[in-house]
């Protein structure tokens, strides 16, 4: 469903700022891929580039999603085609309620596909169900989006969006090494409950801890903008034990 070939990306308007230096990655339907790597390896950049963040510029390579090249598409067009990015630090948006935000997101997706918008009543029902399923505090979703949410609450809110929007490819940017166990568990529960033969995941993470709760099909090690090794779930355990030293040395860095 997703094929990345020789992807190079830099920060817009900054010379010699190449972060991704030739990424190759293929994700099949229903697979869960973990992307691990040391700080500054480009993990978070990869997640953001895939979703079309305007701060990055793709200088070479291709990304094909369901047979269509998506590099020319804006973020919202990628979302309409079934891509989703769970943010490491979701933005706070005062005065916008999660309910209203998600309804608008669903509506614009329906509109882009020429489908009918969900009625307010049907959406309310769906929303309430998902709020319960995700275990987010119902009074919280009546407040402003992410404003004053704790770290765990923000994660639950991201998972709520994942549940409501039902993307076919979810990219989870969990690069933060400071995630507490609670937050890890919330993310893992979200992924596990959404796992299906029709849906794929790319989980970006620094530590193996998250993978105690999610068993990936494929693990990639990303160092200095390149995938240097690909393996099964055991690869994550290996990294946990030995760290990234060996890979960094191979990539010519001072680790």
């Amino acid at each position: 469903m997703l094929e990345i070939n020789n992807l190079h990306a830099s920060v817009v308007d900054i010379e010699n700022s190449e972060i991704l230096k030739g990424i190759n990655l293929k994700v099949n339907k229903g697979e869960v891929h973990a992307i691990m790597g040391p700080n500054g390896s480009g993990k978070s950049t990869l997640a953001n580039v895939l979703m079309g963040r305007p701060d990055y510029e793709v200088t070479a390579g291709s990304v094909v999603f369901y047979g269509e090249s998506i590099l020319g598409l804006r973020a919202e067009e990628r979302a309409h085609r079934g891509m989703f990015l769970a943010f490491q630090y979701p933005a706070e948006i005062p005065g916008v309620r999660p309910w209203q935000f998600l309804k608008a997101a669903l509506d614009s997706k329906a509109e882009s596909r020429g489908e009918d918008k969900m009625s307010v009543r049907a959406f309310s029902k769906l929303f309430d169900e998902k709020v319960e399923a995700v275990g987010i505090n119902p009074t919280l979703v009546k407040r402003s989006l992410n404003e004053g949410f704790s770290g765990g609450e923000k994660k639950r809110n991201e998972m709520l969006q994942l549940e409501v929007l039902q993307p076919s490819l979810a990219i989870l940017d969990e690069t933060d090494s400071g995630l507490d166990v609670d937050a890890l568990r919330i993310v893992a529960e979200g992924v596990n409950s959404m796992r299906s033969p029709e849906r794929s995941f790319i989980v970006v993470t620094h530590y193996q801890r998250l993978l105690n709760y999610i068993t990936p099909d494929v693990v990639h090690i990303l160092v200095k903008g390149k995938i240097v090794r690909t393996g099964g779930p055991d690869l994550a355990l290996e990294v946990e034990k030995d760290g990234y030293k060996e890979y960094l040395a191979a990539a010519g860095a001072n680790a």
Partner: protein
Amino acid sequence: MTNQNTISRESDLSGGEYKWGFVSDIETDLAPKGLSEDIVRLISAKKEEPDWLLQWRLKAYWHWVDLFENEAEPTWAKIDYPKIDYQDIYYYAAPKGTNEAPKSLDDVDPEMLATFEKLGIPLQERAVLAGVAVDAVFDSVSVATTMGKQLGELGIIFCSFSEAVKNHPDLIKKYLGSVVPYTDNFFAALNAAVFSDGSFAYIPPGVRCPIELMTYFRINTEGSGQFERTLIVADEGAYVSYLEGCTAPFRKTSQLHAATVELVALDNSEIKYSTIQNWFPGTKDGEGGVYNFVTKRGRADKNAKISWTQVETGSAITWKYPSVILKGDNSVGEFFSVALVNNHQQADTGTKMIHIGKNTKSTIVAKGISAGKGSNTYRGQVQIMPGAENAVNHTQCDSLLVGDECSAHTVPYIEVRNPTARLEHEASTSKVSDDQLFYLMARGLSEEEAHHMIITGWSRDVIKELPFEFALEAAQLLKVSLEGAVG
């Protein structure tokens, strides 16, 4: 101008540039350009006014002349505009055939009705369905007041100012100029001299007005000024919610609008006054647009409450400070405002809360959105007089910047002459961040939708104070007004 009869308000707001810029081809009765004693007399004569009112206008006129000669046009506001040539303005422009008030809607020029329909004003039956009583002021003359009969049964008076002068002279005489005297300021003096119509509402003691009263203002004639005067009196224990909407056609020349609004809230009464101001803001390059110099003030007696809510998206220049004199003990004043400037618009707006009575309380929530090359200034005054024991004020001023060529300014004045007062002032300035935009776009919203959502969310504390239908319109208006500022 083609005659399109059925453009709904929704489709009018569906996007694009200024949507209200059409001109109606209506025969107009124009007085010659320029301001003189003769013009003041002519306006008064056209309206068949009693002598006391003419004398009041003339006093105002001579006061204004005095101010003009002493160059007392206010210059303290942070607005920059070419000198207004007061002799190059039509001070009276009435659609022909309205010097006799229309007896029914059948007597109203069909072209004019079509214009109002285009504006989405629920005149005729729609008014009843919508539960709104409308007084529509076209150029300077009030065209029709709907639902007068239903209101009459409750003793509520809602009519054009001219009719009120004829039919309720005692009330007008008693309250006209009682809150905003003609000596108040340069533009208030001008208005008092040449005002040609406006709205009047009176709610008798203990009556809760069951519907929202609404006035819709529109400037049509090129080169004409509009000087309407609104007076609302809530008698003891009464309640009224009043809405005001404004549009003007697309003109490359600027138009002057100098209105005065007076609110009188007697003991235990409440007046809620909501405005959506969408006068023509000028072109993208800053040509034309309405110069909006407005004096709005209310007096709250014992236990009374006055609440101003405004959404200001139009006008090239906005100079406006809806205020409350908290005269009676335990009276309450509120001001909720969203002012948006885009392109070359300039707004200098805010409020004055003057605490005189004991235990008086005021709240100010002022939000300014600046986009394009717009300049937005909050100017507010909180004054606690010596007798105002235990007065409380809370002020919150927030500025939001869209793009990097606009500006936002906050100028609060605080004067406390009683040590028991408690005042709080909060201010913030923020930008729509790339993180916020990308977050929403990654969920499927377009950049424009994302901006709109961030901005309406940010304005929510104010918009939620508006009556429901007006709130929807306000949100749409913010969206339309920001087009071109984004992307």
